[in-house]
């Protein structure tokens, strides 16, 4: 374990410890929040009961679909767009300002069109995630050295094979940055939509627990989302590190 990791763990432990002390001292009342050790106990109980399995499956399943769609569409679109200078120049300002648009504002419209099922939630997750993949893939493709493109031509690779064998593998570390963001955005999009209007999922369960003052359910679910998000991010960061190390870039 590196010194930096130890420092990070100490910061987290200090934050949890402070929260625990404030709760136990009554500075934070129990209606607002129970002490972290009780949240941890409720977390284990809730998961062991299997009561939330359906909600977990729904949220993670929808987030996975939204992310998968964003990855496939984002990488393909970026690979196509990279060769189309005029269209790229036209769309660049849109990508630059995309995250200034509150995508959740489209949720009511999506519900009107697709109903109260999972589709609007998946679409919100997709809409949030896809541009991160496009922008980062384009960034990677912009950096492919000319000599590698010439190498592809020497080996008489067509456009598709050049993309799959040279340009996209070269851009992989940049695409992975997009993947990290897309995972987070897909999860935010799906959970956020479930908060607003849904009949299931982790966002809905948190919202339901909140309106009914069920702290013993609400906080463990918040912790669960945090754990999932951090675990996915840590896995992708480790993968990215391995990829960059192999290329002598870190």
């Amino acid at each position, binding site marked *: 374990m590196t010194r930096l990791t130890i420092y990070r763990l100490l910061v987290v432990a200090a934050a949890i410890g402070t929260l625990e002390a404030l709760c136990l001292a009554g500075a934070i009342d129990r209606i607002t929040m129970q002490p972290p050790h009780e949240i941890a106990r409720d977390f284990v109980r809730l998961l062991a009961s299997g009561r939330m399995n359906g909600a977990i499956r729904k949220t993670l399943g929808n987030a996975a679909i939204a992310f998968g769609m964003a990855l496939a569409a984002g990488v393909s679109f970026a690979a196509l767009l990279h060769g189309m200078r005029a269209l790229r120049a036209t769309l660049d300002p849109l990508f630059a300002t995309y995250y200034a648009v509150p995508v959740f504002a489209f949720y009511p419209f999506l519900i009107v069109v697709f109903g109260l099922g999972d589709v609007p939630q998946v679409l919100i997750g997709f809409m949030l995630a896809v541009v991160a993949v496009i922008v980062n893939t384009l960034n990677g493709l912009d950096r492919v050295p000319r000599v590698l493109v*010439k190498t592809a031509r020497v080996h008489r690779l067509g456009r598709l094979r050049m993309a799959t064998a040279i340009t996209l593998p070269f851009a992989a570390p940049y695409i992975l940055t997009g993947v990290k963001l897309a995972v987070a955005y897909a999860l935010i999009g799906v959970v956020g939509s479930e908060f607003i209007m849904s009949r299931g999922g982790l966002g809905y369960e948190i919202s339901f627990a909140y309106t009914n003052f069920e702290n013993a359910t609400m906080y463990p679910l918040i912790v669960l989302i945090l754990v999932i998000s951090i675990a996915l991010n840590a896995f992708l960061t480790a993968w990215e590190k391995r990829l960059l190390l192999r290329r*002598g870039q870190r």
Partner: protein
Amino acid sequence: MTEAPHVTLRGVRKVFAGTGATSPVDALGPVDLDLAHGEFFAVVGPSGCGKSTLLEVIAGLTPVSEGTVAFEGKPVRGEVPDGVGVVFQEDASLPWLDVTANIAFGLRHSGLPADERERRVRRALELMGLVDFAGSYPAQLSGGMRQRVCIARTLVMEPRLILLDEPFGALDQQTRLLMGDELLRLWRTTGATVFLITHALDEAAMLADRIGVMSARPGRLIDAVETRWPRDRDSRIVEHAEFGAVTARLWKTLREESLKTLGAQMRST
């Protein structure tokens, strides 16, 4: 009957079109050139004279503005013909593949049986002294070894024409001499025609059967020096009594052209 040339260039010119802010650049030509089968031909010339453009025109990587290029009697137009291999000056190793996969890159879709592909890769690893680094990634290798990987990747395709654009440009003098020996050995083993671009006169004099001297831009071939070295030669040819005479003749022609380039650069600054 005389054998038809392996590569033929007739009246080849290349003009790079200007953009809104820049004027067109008359980069090359007119160039007429014949390369015989199995010949080792080197080109020297002042910086920016169009040497690399000439190589890219022969490779089919750059279309000509005027004239014709033919390889094995067939015109070269817009794409690299089958049987042509190119080694670039810049590092063209693929950083996400290990040495073995880098060397095998072009063979992956060649349609050759797996055992033949493995045989070629193994032989290239041995020829280029890379056996101990077969599982290493380019980032773990020196610049010289990465260049050897790129040469090996070209060799496994068994090209009949090998185009080399200053392949040893980034290497130290000692490694250049040794890589030159390697190149001569490979040239003898494969029997391929070799076209080498270099800025080092001694390298050209040591390696080539014939050396073309290019003028300042737009690059034209203004002299061709035949070395008449034995085919079975190596870097010790520098001790040959005629070696100094060859480099002296190259420099005599090149000096004036280099001064023209230098003058043009100084005028533009």
